[in-house]
């Protein structure tokens, strides 16, 4: 199901003139670092990780980004000599990720009733090692009795993300945060 969402999203993003790389093409399971490696090899990219949860109000979508590290740890996480440690690569992109998450979440709130209007912060493992603006999108939920309910969300989800990414692109390429 998630792969189905990802393929729809790919079509919508490519229609915006964007190049899209999927970190998996089938039911294989690349590691977090495998996915991060692919993302971090791109220049000027953004990273979106898709999930379908087993809980939550069916038909809603939440967007997550990482929070800023605690002040006491900020110094330790700061890049040294321009090199950002792999295991905390995301900490240099928190503000941009937050902006991207906001743009996507607004779109989701408009299309999927009951979705929050602002993104949430959570220590999502996959995001931590991505050195680019990165968000997680979680759709609720696989607990629905009729799977077609979720399938019907696919096109709207893909279009919403594509619109948000297009808006973010203008900010991103202008170097803004």
């Amino acid at each position, binding site marked *: 199901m998630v792969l189905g969402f990802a393929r729809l999203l790919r079509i919508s993003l490519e229609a915006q003139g964007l*190049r899209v790389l999927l970190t998996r093409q089938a039911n294989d399971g690349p590691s977090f670092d495998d996915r991060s490696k692919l*993302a971090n090899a791109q220049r000027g990219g953004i990273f979106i990780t898709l999930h379908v*949860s*087993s809980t*939550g109000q069916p038909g809603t979508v939440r967007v997550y980004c990482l929070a800023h590290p605690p002040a006491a740890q900020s110094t330790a996480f700061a890049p040294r000599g321009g090199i950002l440690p792999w295991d905390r690569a995301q900490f240099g992109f928190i503000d941009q990720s937050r902006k991207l998450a906001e743009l996507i979440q607004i779109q989701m709130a408009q299309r999927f009733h009951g979705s929050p209007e602002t993104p949430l912060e*959570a220590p999502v493992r996959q995001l931590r090692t991505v050195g680019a603006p990165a968000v997680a999108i979680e759709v*609720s939920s*696989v607990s629905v009795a009729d799977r077609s309910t979720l399938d019907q969300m696919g096109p709207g989800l893909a279009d919403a993300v594509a619109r948000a990414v297009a808006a973010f692109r203008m900010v991103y390429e202008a170097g803004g945060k």
Partner: protein
Amino acid sequence: MSKGLKTTILILGAMVAIGLVILPGLRQAVERLRSVPRTDEQARRDVMQQPISTPTDVEVKAQLYWLSTSAPASLEPIAIPLPLSADPVERSKQLINALITRAPGPERRTLPPEASLLAFYIQPDGTAIADFSDEISSAMPSGIMSEQLAVQSMAQTLGANVNGIRQLKILIHGQEAETLAGHLDLHGLFPVGSATPTSASAAIAPAQAASQTKPTVPVNPASAQASQSH
């Protein structure tokens, strides 16, 4: 009756008598062999799930954070009478065990009932370390929201009822795990101290199937511009 027949009957009678004496013992031995051997993990879990009782236990109204039924995707404190130790480590164990075993209903659970707390420590700097059995991961409803609420329920319950804990580290079977159940990062420490309910804005449905997760999609706007220009 011939002498041979008498001898045979005597021997048979003796054998029946011996059998009657031996049979109960044999039956017990068979029952013992029939029972499934217990693993170390099962034995340890049974021990850990025994109610923890200490000489300093005092029954108090403890504030435990479970899923809210009124505010979706959030936690709310529920006061339950609970004997709690004065010792912060034992007190914390009692609280986490109660979180696992005494949820008011399945729809309010944050932690799977199969999970058990294997060990709990508090370091001098206020870092608490909770070591769980594998079921905290394998039986957890998978998803960012459910995993985050699980951790928050522990952190807020400890914060509301135990003094001196500033942050929480979660281990699984004594090891540092990458995630709780595929999503939430266990690499770092979770802050403890806020007794206010969390807020999010989506409802929680009762835990059911495992989540399906993540083809991740790196997108490259810069190269997209090149594509447009061709």
